[in-house]
């Protein structure tokens, strides 16, 4: 690619020198252009191959980032992820994800949770690997600071404050024209402070932004792309989720940097 640019620079110099005989210069430039385009084509083929390898190869593997070693079902149990709300708060659409209820308290099926969490973490890792913008959202005041700190540590973004109306749907006016919207939104709690579904879920669905959400037994999992049934009220559980997402994102970014370095080495070779 850089050799193509150099060729173009040389060309412009040549054209300036041969300003007198116009036909000659035109002929020269035509030939030169074809020469440079051929050269560029030859040079860019290995580049695209390498880029394709970096971007497309991870998608062919089921667990490219080895995220299954990050957590076990026992860890989820010890972090009390299986504890849901009482029977009266149960949402109808969460019934497939519940294992049962014990003394009126709903118990979430950890086998399904583990599988869905694995899928969600894998998706997050791939998005972070491809340099996507990830937004952490939660409206729980208890964990707002924790989530903001987590987002800062992995270099992504957080929104744990009052959600203004058109943040996603009216973005050029709310921010500035030319703003880039998040490529993935992770909800650590899908409800807002008055126990209604967070506006961000609906807005993300409108703007075709994929969502990952920790859904408790009183939440609606329908509009979320990667729902993860689990407890969102206990500090232990929230710390565990934050830790897991931070580790996945850091891992994915480190892997990308590694691949870029390797690409640099192979390109120079």
């Amino acid at each position, binding site marked *: 690619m850089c050799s193509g640019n150099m060729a173009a620079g040389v060309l412009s110099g040549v054209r300036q020198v041969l300003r007198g005989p116009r036909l000659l210069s035109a002929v020269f430039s035509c030939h030169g252009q074809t020469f440079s385009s051929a050269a560029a084509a030859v040079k860019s083929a290995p580049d695209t191959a390498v880029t394709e390898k970096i971007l497309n190869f991870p998608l062919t593997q089921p667990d490219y980032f080895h995220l299954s070693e990050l957590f076990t079902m026992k860890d989820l149990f010890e972090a009390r992820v299986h504890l849901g709300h009482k029977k009266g708060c149960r949402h109808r659409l969460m019934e497939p994800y519940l294992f049962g209820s014990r003394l009126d308290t709903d118990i979430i099926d950890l086998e399904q949770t583990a599988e869905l969490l694995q899928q969600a973490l894998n998706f997050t890792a791939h998005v972070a690997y491809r*340099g996507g*913008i990830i*937004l952490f959202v939660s409206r729980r005041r208890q964990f707002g*600071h924790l989530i*903001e700190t987590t*987002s*800062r540590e992995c*270099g*992504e*973004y*957080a*929104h744990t*404050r009052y959600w*203004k109306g058109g*943040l996603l749907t009216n973005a050029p006016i*709310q*921010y*500035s024209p030319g*703003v*880039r919207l*998040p490529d993935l939104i992770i909800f650590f709690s899908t409800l807002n402070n008055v126990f209604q579904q967070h506006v961000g879920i609906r807005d993300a669905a409108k703007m075709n932004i994929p969502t990952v959400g920790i859904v408790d037994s009183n939440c609606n999992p329908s509009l979320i792309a990667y729902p993860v049934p689990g407890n969102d009220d206990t500090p232990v559980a929230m710390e565990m989720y934050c830790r897991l997402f931070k580790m996945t994102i850091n891992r994915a970014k480190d892997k990308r940097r590694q691949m870029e370095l390797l690409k640099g080495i192979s390109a120079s070779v």
Partner: protein
Amino acid sequence: MAASGCRGVRSILWKYGSCGKNFCLSRSKTVPQLPVRQICVSSSLWKKNLAAAGPQKFTQEFIDKQVEEFEIGKRHLANMMGEDPETFTQEDIDRSIAYLFPSGLFEKRARPVMKHPDEIFPKQTAVQWDAEGRPFHFLFYTGRQSYYSLLHDVYEKILAMERHQDKMRNKGLFASETKQILLTGSRWQLKEEIEEYLVENISDHGYMRLIQLLEKLLSMPYCSLEEDFILKFRKQLEVQSSKHEIPALQHDPQGVAFSVADGRRKTAKASITLRDSGSGNITINGRNYLHCFPLLQDREQLMFPLHFVGMLGRFDVEGSVEGSGHSAQAGALRLAISRALLSFVSEGEVERMRQAGLLTADPRIRERKKPGQEGARKKFTWKKR
């Protein structure tokens, strides 16, 4: 508006129509003529929507160019005034501009001004994201990144302080009477000042929340660790009496101390010389004050400042006064005497005098007469029918 719109449409169609004709002439039958669709365009679409444009935005290059021009202009001005361009300060610039462009306008902001562009053009936020579109600040998507990051920092400090407290308790070194931050003589910064500091708009509720968080930080035992941070949000109140300009105490060749001061009331202007001679004589315009002010009330006004500080028989008062009537002249003289007394009196006495109202210039002037009325307030006779 419809007529202008139609005219516009017709002109557009005519332009396109003529272009189409030229096309027909040059390339015959190779390009099929596209049907011209009548688009109704009203003139409101062409006019710039000034209300929706918002405040005018200046690009960074424009402001940099203005800064360059200002620096060059400053050097030209210094050369014009015959001064050294290297040591030409903003005060010199103001003085030179006032000299070169004398203006009789009352509104100071309407007069010609030459200041650094940073003071003239309003501060604007720069582009918030990098080349790939990733925003710089981690709270960018909240819409109010500076304010929320400030709340985040304050909460972080509260948590850190609680952890510190727990550590001290564990070691057994916890002391509840730790050094407190001095808050007397200062107030919390106003919402406008914090908005200026953050370059962002805050709501009243948001401002209250910030102040509540800072108060919570202050209520903790070890708040002195974050003293610098908290004092950033407090503004020192100026002590009122320190603003008084005390006239310099001068000495006669005989060694007698005296001070000179001026005073004004309505249109009367007075100038007083207080001599520390020991007699209680008062001379105004060369005559004794009994001749100038036959009315007791006026003489009481003259006497009041000296009686208040208890130095009635100590000073020799020599004054000149002109303009307005007897009462206004007496008031002007009283103010002048009080100001002259400041150089003979202690700090505490100055504050007492200020609170007694001796040092405040009376701002009342004559109210103008309005048309349709007899005088300033008096109306013509009201007739019911």
